[in-house]
């Protein structure tokens, strides 16, 4: 606990436009203390790892900028790339197309935190951590359609704590394709929060690619607010982190919207990769399609918690959740748990979970066609991932992503 308070004190003095938020975040962190396993949502988490996380110093500016060699850098051509490598976001240097602009100060003040509150993230430890440390927010307003893909890249630096925050306000009828890439490096700790507000009939296709490296950690909260007849798709990929905790939450504030969530988490070595999702329908006739895939190799651990809340007001909700897991080693562990809280009576909610191994019959089939044992396993594993990768926005060529996912998976 002393270390925890010391770390809090080591953060730079609260200042700038987000000063009030920083102070509140620090207050919350003090009040909440370090999470422990007695708290239900942290029950399966590696708390010892959290204690290590708080040893890394906060950095204001990353000096190791995005690795030129990194294949991820060139995923698509027609895109606007925004690299957040500093706590000073140089708005002037970002070339936004017509239909997208930066939120001005008063818009920012009005909307910042709104979706976080709607998503009941106020007392969330990882959000508080982000609030405590973030110095500047990237805020965008989307007003048009047929825009180029927006790609937000969050690079990293060894042995550092890197907080980043984004808010995107998507106007009525507007459409956005958004990819986020978060990259870890040795002993880096990322804290990321993104809020997306979808106006009526807005459409957002959101991809989050989170690739860690040796001993890196990620804590990310995604807070989505959907108005009626909006359509939100989220596709997340987490791989390579020693510790990763992703919390996507979506609230359909009037119901009558469509939410699509696809997730892929891959753990190996001693990784612990977790997804805690929540979708709440605060109005009738909302729909959800959710597919979460987790593959765990070696001594690693994957966690999926999928909450769906359907209060009385949310009649005629139609929600589907499926968790399909692949246990690649007898020493690995996968915990998957749907949490359905359904009060409305006229609803359709289906959920299911499977845990399987690589199918011997599939491997034999490929081998009987001359394909090596490990290549067969890799092909099948690729197939398993493909279903999720296919949902990522606009990326036509997924070979590079696939190569990243495959590293270290072959025996």
């Amino acid at each position, binding site marked *: 606990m002393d270390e925890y308070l010391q770390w809090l004190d080591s953060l730079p003095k609260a200042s700038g436009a987000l000063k009030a938020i920083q102070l509140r975040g620090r207050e919350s962190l003090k009040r909440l203390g370090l999470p422990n396993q007695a708290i239900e949502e942290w029950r399966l988490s590696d708390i010892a790892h959290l204690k290590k996380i708080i040893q890394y110093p906060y950095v204001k500016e990353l000096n190791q900028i995005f690795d030129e060699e990194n294949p991820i850098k060139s995923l698509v051509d027609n895109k606007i790339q925004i690299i957040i490598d500093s706590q000073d976001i140089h708005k002037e240097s970002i070339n936004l197309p017509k239909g997208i602009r930066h939120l001005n100060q008063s818009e920012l003040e009005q909307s910042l935190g709104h979706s976080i509150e709607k998503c009941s993230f106020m007392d969330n430890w990882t959000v508080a951590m982000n609030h405590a440390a973030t110095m500047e927010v990237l805020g965008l307003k989307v007003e048009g359609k047929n825009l180029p893909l927006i790609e937000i890249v969050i690079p990293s630096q060894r042995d550092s704590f890197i907080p980043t925050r984004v808010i995107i306000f998507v106007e009525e009828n507007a459409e956005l394709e958004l990819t986020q890439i978060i990259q870890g490096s040795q002993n880096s700790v990322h804290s990321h929060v993104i809020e997306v507000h979808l106006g009526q009939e807005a459409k957002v296709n959101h991809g989050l690619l989170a690739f860690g490296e040796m001993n890196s950690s990620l804590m990310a909260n995604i807070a989505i607010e959907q108005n009626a007849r909006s359509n939100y798709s989220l596709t997340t990929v987490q791989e390579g982190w020693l510790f990763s905790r992703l919390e996507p939450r979506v609230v359909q504030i009037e119901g009558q919207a469509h939410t699509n969530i696809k997730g892929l988490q891959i753990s190996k070595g001693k990784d612990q990769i977790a997804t805690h999702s929540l979708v709440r329908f605060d109005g009738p006739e909302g729909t959800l399609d959710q597919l979460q895939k987790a593959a765990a190799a070696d001594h690693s651990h994957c966690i999926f918690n999928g909450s769906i809340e359907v209060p009385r007001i949310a009649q005629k909700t139609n929600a589907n959740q499926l968790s399909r897991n692949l246990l690649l080693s007898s020493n690995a562990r996968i915990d998957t748990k749907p949490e359905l809280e359904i009060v409305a009576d006229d609803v359709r909610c289906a959920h299911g979970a499977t845990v399987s191994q690589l*199918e*011997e*019959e*599939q491997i*034999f*089939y*490929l*081998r*009987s*066609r*001359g*394909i*090596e*044992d490990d*290549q067969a396993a890799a*092909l*099948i594993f*690729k*197939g*398993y*991932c*493909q*279903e999720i990768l296919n949902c990522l926005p606009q990326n036509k060529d997924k070979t590079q992503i696939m190569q990243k996912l495959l590293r270290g998976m072959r025996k």
Partner: protein
Amino acid sequence: MIRQDAKVILDIVDLHARVEDQTILNGVNLKVRAGEIHAVMGRNGSGKSTLSKIIAGHPAYDVTSGTIYFQGENLLAMEPEERARVGIFLGFQYPIEIPGVSNLEFLRVSTNARRTQLGLEELDTFEFEDLVNERIKLVQMDPIFLNRSVNEGFSGGEKKRNEILQMALLEPIVAILDETDSGLDIDALRIVSSGVNQLAKPNTATILITHYQRLLNEITPDYVHVMNAGRIIRTGGKKLALELEKSGYEWLDAEPGNQGGLNHG
């Protein structure tokens, strides 16, 4: 086509095998020469698929005694992928679905594995597409199935066509077709059979596992074997298949010799 002087390419000698604690093969003997077509018939559960999977190298089965020679080499010492590369092909009774793996890519990777073994150059995606477009005509399969995942959502008949397409690409020396005819309507049966006939060459051999005489009207076997309780108990010519069609398999139970094993072939 029987030629007594033709080379024996597959020689199964007194093969015994089991899975877990259950003995399934009980002394199978079968000699296959270049150019021959063999039919293996027999009741459900007599061990036909097991025999075919053991030839292909399925790891679930333990060979407890006996040997299989392929062109004079000990086949049992080879991994399944090596067997495929040297020219063993098994057309599965139940082809396996592999979600997310492109059929076209799968076909290309396996074709190249075989080509490498044959000392041929690997084909790139464009060259391979030319080849596959030519071979697909043989089975009249809709090219749409090339862009799907391997066997996923294919009907029974489409799966079987896909198996024969693989055979056409891999050009095996010994093809074992396990109930390729089941699930095919009469038109599809003709198409697939004509494909198999065209692929049969003087230096290759085909083993057809089937329940039905109707396949043998399309592909004429040189030998017909009857399998029962894990061994081949009778061998004859095409006439034997006709007899079986007429009289069924009940006579097997009446013949006491079956327990001891009657071996021809």
